[in-house]
Structure formats: C-alpha cells, structure tokens
C-alpha cells in the first residue's frame, strides 16, 4: 500500500493543488472506520459476559451464529444489490415464497433435492424479474422490488392458505441441521457464502463493475461498462441468496413459513448499512456486512439471555441501527 507516493509526486512548477497532499499519515482513518462495528461487537460481548454467565459459552456462541445464519445468507445478496446502487425490498418475501415453494414441491413430489432446486430457482426467478424491471425497464429499484415483494408475500400466503406446511422428510432437515465441526451446516452455508460473495465482490472484474455501477452509474456507462447487465446480475444473485435462505430456513424449522418477509428484508438491509456499506452504493465490503449481521445477532442473543420480550428485541435492534447510523455521520464529519 505504501510504495507509491514518492514516485507519483514529481516535481512541478505548479503549487500543490489539493490542501493536505504530502501528508502521508492520514491513512489509518479508514481502518478506524472499518473497526468500529467489530469494536462495538466486542464491547457488547464483554458487557454480556458480565451480565450473563451463559453468554461466553461455546454452545451460545454457536447459537449466535445460527440465529444470524439465514439473515447472513440474505445479507450477502443484499450487499451486491446495495453496493451496485440499488435496493431490494423483496428479498425477505423472496425467502418466504422460496421456502413455501420448496416445501410444496417436496410434499407433492416426495423428492427433497427437487424441492431444493425449485426453491433456489424460484428465488432467482424473482431476482430476474426485479432486475428486468429496474435495470431493464428503468423502474426505480425501490418501487419495483416493493411491488414484487408484495406479490411474493401474497403468493406465499395463497399457496399455503396461511397454514404452515408440514410433513417434510428428515433427510431434508439434515441439509441444515447436521453438525460439522461443532456448527450446524446452516452456519457453514452462511460462512461459505460470505467467502464466495467476498471473493466475487472484491477479487473479480465483476466486483469492480458492481462498485463502478453503484459509485456513478452514468460514468460507468460512459466508460463502456454494461451497467444494466451488472445490475441485473446483482438482482439475480440476491434472488439466489434469498432462494437458498428460504430452502435452508424451511429445512431448519421443518415447515414452510409464509410470515418471515418483512423483518428479514429490514434486518438484511440494516445489516448491510450497519456494517458501513453506503446506502447510496459504490462503497462497502462483504466483511462489513458480516459484522453487521453479527452485531444484530449478538444484540438479539443478548436480549434473549436477559429475558427481554421478543417484541422489544426488535425495538433494540432498531435502536442499535439508529445509533450506528448516527455514529457514522459523526465519524464522517470528523
């Protein structure tokens, strides 16, 4: 990171154009910003360790990850969409619908792999529709996904008549709940997806294009980047993540769940923003989203341990979100 400055600063007759250049000791600022949420988690963890004897146990920490797993998988997809300068408000409803589709297909056909494939495909299809509407037709993503999300939520209820679907085979449940190295496969799915998502977002040309499209859509277009295609891909990725999350959620709770939509959409978006990714696009990272998910998960877990009412937990997550958003404004101002 440091071998350049001298080389780039060639002598010139023109005085310094930007105030502050030549001062090389200002880089750590970025790191402080990136460490804010992990630091917050650490402080919170420390406090909870003193508040509850159960917090710092292997079992409970596994529980923290498990609680955050479905949210994490959804948030990976949301990260792509948000950094690409869009917003996907259908993503939680996508989880609900994909989960229902999975359950129905398994119950009807008796084959759980077919159900898994259909669930993920359902998610991707919804993502494709989102992409075609917003990237293709030019409908603002906010509006388009609000609409498709509502459709998905309605379909999920209609398909189930509001009743949870049961009678799923144990082999399907094992997809999410098998223990491996002390953690359930659901958690491994999430961790694996974060790694894959991080690699794609930060180490490939596609990732650079995502950042470019979100950073300045017009400029990316004029630079010769297929912005519409990149945005479409983001929505399909988010849809696939939503579909997978639906499949795994269904496997874990052994039933189709039509009602998870709203909170998952909000929490996934909150996790991405909480981690420090810009809602305006073009700035952020997969690691940040991971810590955002972890923060939400730790808060929920802590409140559980302290025996706080479930509804109040949502209030608490909201408070953390608002505080973190305020702190970001302060950090930026400094």
């Amino acid at each position, binding site marked *: 990171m440091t071998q350049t*400055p001298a080389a*780039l*600063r*060639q002598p010139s007759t023109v005085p310094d154009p930007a105030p502050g250049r030549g*001062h*090389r000791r200002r880089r750590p600022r970025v790191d402080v910003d990136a460490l804010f949420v992990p630091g917050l988690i650490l402080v919170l963890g420390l406090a909870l360790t003193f508040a509850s004897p159960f917090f710092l146990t292997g079992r409970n920490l596994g529980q923290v990850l498990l609680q955050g797993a479905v949210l994490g998988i959804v948030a990976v997809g949301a990260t792509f969409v948000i950094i690409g300068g869009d917003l996907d408000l259908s993503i939680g409803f996508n989880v609900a619908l994909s989960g229902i589709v999975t359950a129905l297909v398994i119950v009807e056909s008796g084959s759980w792999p077919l159900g898994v494939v259909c669930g993920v495909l359902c998610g991707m299809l919804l993502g494709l529709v989102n992409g075609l509407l917003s990237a293709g037709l030019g409908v603002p993503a906010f509006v388009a996904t609000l609409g498709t999300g509502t459709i998905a939520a309605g379909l999920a209820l209609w398909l189930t008549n509001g009743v949870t679907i049961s009678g799923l085979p144990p082999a399907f449940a094992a997809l999410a709940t098998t223990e491996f190295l002390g953690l359930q496969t659901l958690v491994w799915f999430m961790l694996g997806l974060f790694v894959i998502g991080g690699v794609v977002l930060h180490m490939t*040309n596609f990732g650079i294009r995502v950042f470019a499209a979100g950073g*300045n859509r017009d400029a990316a277009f004029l630079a010769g980047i297929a912005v519409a295609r990149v945005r479409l891909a983001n929505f399909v990725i988010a849809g696939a993540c939503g579909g997978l999350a639906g499949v795994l959620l269904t496997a874990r709770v052994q039933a189709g769940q039509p009602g998870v939509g709203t909170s998952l959409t909000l929490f996934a978006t909150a996790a991405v923003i909480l981690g420090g990714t*810009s809602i305006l696009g073009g700035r952020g990272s997969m690691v940040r989203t991971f810590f955002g998910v972890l923060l939400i998960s730790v808060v929920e877990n802590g409140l559980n341990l302290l025996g706080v009412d479930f509804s109040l937990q949502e209030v608490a997550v909201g408070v953390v979100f608002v505080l973190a958003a305020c702190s970001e404004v302060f950090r930026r101002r400094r």
Partner: protein
Amino acid sequence: MTGSDRAGTARLTASGVSHHYGGVAALSDVGFDVATGEVHALLGENGAGKSTLVRVLTGALVPDAGKLAIDGRRLRFHSPRDAQAAGIGVVHQDYHLFPDLTVAENVCAVSVHAPSRARIVDRRRMVATAHDLLHELGVDVDPQRRAGGLDAAERKLIEIARALLQRPRFLLLDEPTAALEPRETDRLLGVIARLRERGTGIILVSHRLGEVCRIADRATALRDGRQVDTLPRPELTPTALTHLIVGSTVSELQGPAHHAGPTALEVRGLRLRDGATPIDLHVGERELVAVIGLVGSGVPAVLGAVAGSVPSPSASITVDGRAVRITGPRAARRHGIGFAPEDRKRTGLMLQQSVAANMGLGSLSNWSRGGFTNRSSLRSSAEQAGRVFDIRCRSVDQPVGSLSGGNQQKVLLGRWHLAGVSTLVVQEPSQGVDIGARHEIHKHLVSFAADGGRVLFSSSDMDEVRAIAHRIYVLHAGEVSAVFDNTGSERPSRAAVTEAMTTDARSHAHLPDQETSA
C-alpha cells in the same frame, strides 16, 4: 436600485485572514478589500485558497484568525445568513436552481425576502419583483417560465437576480462564466459592468484571464494560501496575470507541431435535425480535431455519435476503413474509442473510489485472468500512468474525489491511456482546470496524437481550440458552418472563429476588448 441609492462608497475589508484545515494552512495572513462601484478579481489556481477566502467572505466559514469589516465596522459572521444581512450577496459556481419551479419562484421563493402577505406567498408580487430584477439586469425572460428550460447564461443571470433580491452592496461571483460560451460570457460581463455602474462592489472569482482583463478594476492573486500581489487596472494583461498566479510564465501552445496523416475516422451523413444538411467530418491519423459551436448548435451530439453516448442511427461511421455501428459507449470502446465527458464529477468518475479503480475501468480485462482481478498489476499500471500524466496524489488508493480538477481530468485521460485506445473523444478538456494543469493536459493530448492517436474534442475556450487543434469544425444550428485549418500560416484569428460561430446572432454587450487577437 441595487445598493446605489445609498450615498457614498463603502468598503468591505478582510484583513489578516488565516485558516487551517487539519494541519494544512489554507490561508495565511491574507488581506482583501473591495469598494462599492468596483470589480475586484480574485485569482489563483485550484488549491491556492480562493474558495476558502470566498467561504470566509460569505459567512460559510469562520476563519482561525482575521477580521472582516465594512467601513471599519467589525463584522462577525456565524453563518451565510449573517453575511447576507450585512449586505454581501453571493452567486456560487455551481448552479443552485430548481428546474421544476418557475423563474419567479427561483428568484424569490427560496429567500426570506420573498414577497408574502401573512406568511402566504404573494404570487403576483413575486412575479412583478422577479420581472423588475431581471429587467434591471437587462434579461428578457418570462418570470413564469420553468427554470429548467433555460440556457446556461440565463440560469446564471437568474441566480444573480436571486442574489440581488436582498439588495446587497457587495456581490461575490464565483466563476460565473465557467459554463458559458463566448457570446453568453459577453452578456454576463455586460451585466457585471451595469451592476458596477449602479454602485455594487463586485468580487469576481475567475479562471478566465481574458475576461478579468476586460472587466476588472483590480486583481488580486493568491498562491499557496498567501496573497501574492494586487495589480491595478492599467497593469492587467493575461501575461501579467498568468505570471502573478503561477509564479512563472506558461505560454499557450501555438497549434500542434506535428503533421496529421490520412483519414482514420470518418463520420458521414450525421443529421442533427430534420431539414439540416447532414454533417460530414473526418479525423486523420495523428490529428487533433475540434468541434465548436454555441449551445444548441449540436456539438455534444456530434461527439456523442462517435463516443456512443448519443448514438446516431443516421450516421455512417468508418474507423480505419471499416464501417462500424456505434450503438453505445461499449461499442465505441470495442472500436478503440475512449470518451472523456464534459462533467467529470457527474459522468466521468466514481469520486469515492480509488484512482487505480477509476483508471482501470476502461481496460479491466488487461488486469485479470479468468475474471479475477490482479489488483497489484492494476495498481502498478495506474502508478505508471500516474507518472506519465504527472498526477499528483498521495497514492493510487486515494479516492479520486479528493484530487483537484486538473488531476481528475488526468485520471480520466489515464483510463484511456491504460486501455490503449486509438481515438480519444474529449469534451471541454480543461474546464475547471487551473492554468498549469491545463497546459499539461494540452501537451498530453498533442503527444497522444503525435504518437499515432486521434483526438476529437469540443471546447468553449477559443484559446484552447487554437492552441491544440489541427482543424476546427464550427457548427451552427446543427450544420457545419465553417472548417478552419489551424496549422501553418493560415491559422484563423479568434475573431474569425467567433464570427463563424455566431453567423446570425451577434453579441449584445459592447465592452472594450483588451485581448490581443492574434
């Protein structure tokens, strides 16, 4: 009307102004003053401290040290409102108009001085007020029109009218002509002269030295946050001002030194409007071609047809003898055409992202294998391009938004340098760029061409066009009205080129033109 009713002259004085951003001194012990009825130009390169001083004078920034006073009475500003209350109006460089509101609403409604009765807007009086103000400025615009449909000069004049609503004694104009073309500039300078006659004290911040020489009574230059000198009117010449600003003499290029080769890129039958004669245009090997014209003459459409930003189905375009279809920027890129658009911040760069990422955007496949980006090779290439273009930054990881305008433009040119394009399409190569960087950008464009590239550019800056173009196409109302050869002895004069641009519309303002036309 504007402040002239008050008897006698008043003087706004800033003295001993110093300010630091972090550890960096933006202003050190700067003094500046302006009297009513004079135009005092404030000059300096980007980063010289002009904008900091502007912020101090308009109450947007409380300096670390220094005093402001009007006729010896001490002023203390805590916000821009205080400055307005003290009689200092400001028109910022960027446009702050609401395109969907009417002219009258834009002039009046955003101000606390808006005509109202019992807190409800008095629309009729508002229109009348706006009409009066615009009339004073000599602007003939219907106050009930939507502001969005106006041209750049009219929009600037409306912002001036808005500032005048509060009857300021002093008016600060921050680069008012930056986005204007010659004829519009003349019109605006006429308005400034009129305001001066009425006794308004004008602080004019400008990069354009020609107009400073025409209108200013005095000129003060800042360099590195210090006040270099103040020159009185008789000493105002572009050369003297350049010397004052840069500290050394920078001379404009006198046209490219190398000869252009045979035709490499050709546009035929580009029809910009129904009934217009289609435009034919060609760019030779190693040639720099300028396309110029007034706003509305179709210059952006001609460049856009080649760059792909405004694809034209009617035109047939040939690159290196092969007919190509340019359906968008990506298609243009495939044919080796790179585009540096006019509004760098809005349509050129990802400001929050690094210099390296911005530079690599045109040539991602060069830094990757199987879709995976090789960041270190991208960085080292960006560093190498940074050296070629003398981009001044701490590192290529720095966000591009933190660089000066000149360096941002170089990043944009660096992008296409890395992409190895054969043709550069550039809108306004040195808009918003200081004198030193402007000269460097000119040299880079010329050497890009000399090394076998082709350059098609547009510019509203006549000196720039004459400095680097081999040939100049002049557009008027969607048609080519003249083509000039800018090499050798036939180089056209400024006047001749301007004349071709304004074949049927002459400028309204008659100002003494002190510029020496070659």
